[in-house]
């Protein structure tokens, strides 16, 4: 199978994720979209590794997974805390740091 298709799929997934981040208001969904973008990047890494015949991409993909996992931990914790205090998971509402 042509590895380039995976690259295209990766691009599509990334775009969906980016649009999700920009359009959706629910923090959980935004979060899922970020994960989608990360995994799109992972897919690209692995595909390129395959195309170039090296293992570098796969190694980086592991790093990304670990970072993503760490991010989930921190990110979800923040979201849960905000939800507890504000009774809302909308990302437009916490605006205390604006200006």
């Amino acid at each position: 199978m042509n590895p380039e298709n995976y690259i295209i799929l990766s691009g599509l997934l990334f775009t969906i994720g980016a649009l999700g981040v920009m359009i959706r208001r629910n923090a959980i969904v935004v979060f899922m979209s970020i994960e989608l973008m990360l995994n799109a990047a992972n897919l690209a890494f692995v595909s390129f590794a395959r195309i170039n015949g090296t293992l570098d991409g796969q190694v980086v993909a592991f790093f990304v997974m670990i970072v993503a996992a760490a991010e989930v931990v921190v990110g979800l914790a923040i979201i849960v805390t905000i939800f507890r205090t504000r009774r809302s998971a909308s990302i437009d509402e916490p605006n205390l740091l604006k200006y």
Partner: protein
Amino acid sequence: MIGTGAVVAQTAPLLAPLNAATGIFQYIWVLIALPLAGAIILLTTGSLLKRWGHIIGVATVGVSAILGIIMLLEMMGRSADDRAFGQTAFTWVFAGQFDVDVAFQLDQLSMVFVLLITIVGTLIHIYSIGYMAHDPDRKRFFGFLNLFIAAMLLLVLADNYLLLYVGWEGVGLASYLLIGFWQYKNSAAAAAKKAFVINRVGDVGLSLAIMLMFVTFGSVTFSSVFANAGEASDSTLTWIGLLLLLAAAGKSAQFPLQAWLLDAMEGPTPVSALIHAATMVTAGVYLIVRSNAIYDRTVFAATAVVVVGVITMIIGAIIGSAKDDIKKALAGSTMSQIGYMVLAAGLGPIGYVFAIFHLLTHGVFKANLFLSAGSVMHGMNNGVNMRRFGALRAAMIITFGAFTAGYLAIIGIPPFSGFYSKDKIIHAAFEQSNIVGIAGVLAAGITGFYMTRMIVMTFFGKARWEDDAHPHESPPVMTIPLIILGFGSAFTGMALVYWGDIETWLTPVTGLEERELAIPTVVLEMLTLATVLVGVGVAIWIYRRSVPIEPPQKVSVLTVAARQNMFDDAINDVVAVRPTWYTARFLVWFDNRAVDGFVNGLAAAVGGVSGRLRRIQTGFTRTYALVMVIGVLAVLTALGLVMLP
């Protein structure tokens, strides 16, 4: 200036190198160190030694006086060209070509000053024991007095102008402390400040003169400045002369810096005696006479000295005639008498010796007069208003006797001391210029008037005492110095002329010149004496009967001006104080509004711009993300545009 007489005899000052200080003269520094040590002990030990403070004060100055007398005797035993001694203590300050030592010079001129300062100083110290007996801060008072004496001795013993400056300013400091001794009185504190600030104006002159001397001669020691004075340009010498005159005017309360002197009466009376007789105001005369090598070579500056002296002599006498405050009347008299000395010093070699001669006799009789006035005040609940005195001669006979001796001395009745010294100055003035001579005679007449007025209002006539006044004679500790000074007032002049031969004594330092005079000396003396007697007669005529307790208001313009000290405060106010104050106020405003306003405005502007810019931070995460994506796309596009073609 046109001299009226042909030169008869001329002696130039000796500029012999100083002898190394040996024998008793190794201890020149002790003269200063003793009162200084006394001051340090008295001022730093707090309430310790409180009961012995005055003893320490008197003892240190007294021992200095004895040491001074021993030195005088030793000096008299030597020949005239062997009487100047130099002693270097240590190197003081040096950088590049600038090199000044702490070094002392004791010559005939310094010697007479040392004696005047220490002997009169000792008497004033003793007198103060009684006068300040009830003051809780008497110990501090003695500390300040000692500081005063030490500074004045440093002033006259320094061998260079920079060290002289230290003594000069030390005298200023001590006078500041003493005038403001009763600091809880606002008037005393203000008077002290005024004295110091006006003296600072004079100090500007001294500073600049020293700088000009250094730039010209490469040194500020008396010996090298005087030795090379002949090689400096006329304009340089004139500038130095004028700047030194400014300095002298500040310290000696000469026109136009005379305003502090009358206010300085806020200090305790012994302080007034010390300032007016033995120290402070004589410093200016010392400076001019000491710098004779400069003034001999600059007619302009010397003439300026004469003019300043004449103006001060006249206005001082007029002020003295109008004051009802006995101390202020005496202060006006001091101005006038110092005017005589400055005038004489400005005359050049014909006058230097007599300036110092008059300074010495004046030092004695003015101390006498002030201390007598203090004794009167002591017996009159510290009252100073002569309109509330009168008929005091019976109540305080010793004070009256001493005051009378001083009175006869100051108006110049022969053979009292003022006669010798004042007539010599008038004589020298006529040698130089008739106008100056006539001014001198006139001032002598006014002196006769105001002194008679003073003695009549205080000791004669009817008693106009306040209800609670119980005049009494002062204790012996005060009257004994008065008696000594009374005899001094009577005989100092004679002693210095016939026994001390002051002219020959001082000539090696100052030079001497005598001119032939159109008018015979005897005629001149008679003329002066007659003028004085006219002044005395007028005063007796006016004050022979009653003296109103309230000062009369319908008086001449001159009296009004004299009561206001010739409007000197008003003039200073318009010329210096107000402009300075308004400038200061404006600059405070300017600094807050303009300079700091600019800085704060800049800060506000930056703050304002960033205040607008921060609106971009909307707080919507998705907006940020969108901007980021657009940014990434823009960068990619730009990269692509650069890379692809």
